[in-house]
């Protein structure tokens, strides 16, 4: 997953945060990644943040 941007997304009814929308270098695919450390893509987001990138609210 070559991350370009990460944005928090909220539940449409409760308005509470539930996952991240991730755009990558694959323009035809929209990823939704859970806030869950067992998920390897969430681990990739954490590494992406450590590299100096920011998650959009």
């Amino acid at each position, binding site marked *: 997953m*070559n991350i370009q941007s990460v944005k928090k*997304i909220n*539940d*449409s*009814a409760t308005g509470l945060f*539930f*996952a991240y929308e*991730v755009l990558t270098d694959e323009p*035809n*695919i*929209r*990823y*939704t*990644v*859970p806030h*869950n450390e*067992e*998920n*390897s*893509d*969430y681990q990739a987001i954490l590494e992406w943040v450590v590299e100096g990138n920011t998650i959009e609210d």
Partner: protein
Amino acid sequence: MTSTIKADVVTAQTTNGNVTLQGNGTGTVAISDNTAITGTLSATGAATLSSQAYPTAGGLWSGRNMVINGSMAVSQRATSATGLGAAASYPTLDRYQLAGNTNGRVTMSQTADGPSGIANCLKLACTTADTSIASGGYFFFHQKFEGQNLQRWAKGTADAKTVTVSFWVKGNASATYVVALEDADNTRHCGFTFPVTTSWTRITRTFPADTTGAFDDDNAYSLTCIFHLSAGSDRTSGTLPSTWQATVTANRCPGITQFLDSTSRTFFLTGLQMEVGAATPFEHESYSETLQKCQRYFTKIAPKVNAVTVRGYNSSGAVVSSWFSFPTQMRTEPTCAITGTWAVSNCGQPAFQSFSVDGFLFGATTSSAADTYFYPDASSEYITASAEL
């Protein structure tokens, strides 16, 4: 000389009650046809019945292969992918991750070829060579395992078992590669070289018991069965450990042929099995059994093209949605993805409203209070969920 004992009963006279029928080490102890054996028949050591080797201690009659998709039958993502080798990905066959960081590029495919009884194999073809792999370069493919599926090893205990990895392999020319087991929980490894020829050959490598370092009993990554095909000196300058040891990078794959050194290189593998004890015949299973195992880690859901996926009515700006269950519970909350631009009526593009290990809520925001629906209008538009290790 032929000697004959004629008796109705042979009774042990020894204190331990044993009766021994002993050949001379090269002949056989035969029981004539149509002779029934009653009571409990027990045998220690390897058993071969009708030329079939059977599981030894620690093995199982079925479910003994810890590898998923060893017959290379399931390929949900794609049957072929090109230009691979610059990063880690799951491009084709389920459960097999390809990883690399060199200038070499390969095509990976599910190919209709194999030894007798196995229809498909994993094929790698080098399409761009890298004849001077950097010291830190690597190229391999592997399958990762959850710790809870490895407890039968009894690894890290006094009762630890040997484990055998077996597979069928061939290539375009003679070559030598490395198969290794790498314990991610305890940072330990053990590996062996294996030869490749131009004909299908079954390779078996038995890894010794390891009384150090137990696997975590959970759904996280604990072990990989890895095939090293190219690597730089950082990973090849040491000595390949034939007994388990703390991981040393230089010891990961000494002695390998560089698969990426020529565009004529091909590599074929199938019938991959990892089991406790000695090698047994490859354990075949139905396509549906293999698919369901794969779907714990990745599933592709392709709704009918040009048929409504979700339809409803809601106030302007609200969401019309429906819950879809995964075919099997996934390993953990998956990454869900929508591919392509879907056909919509009175709404934006569909999105995941929520999800869990069991399924997902899929919907779209309405533009006005009216009939609202969406659907894929091409086979390139579908949903995936990935919970790979």
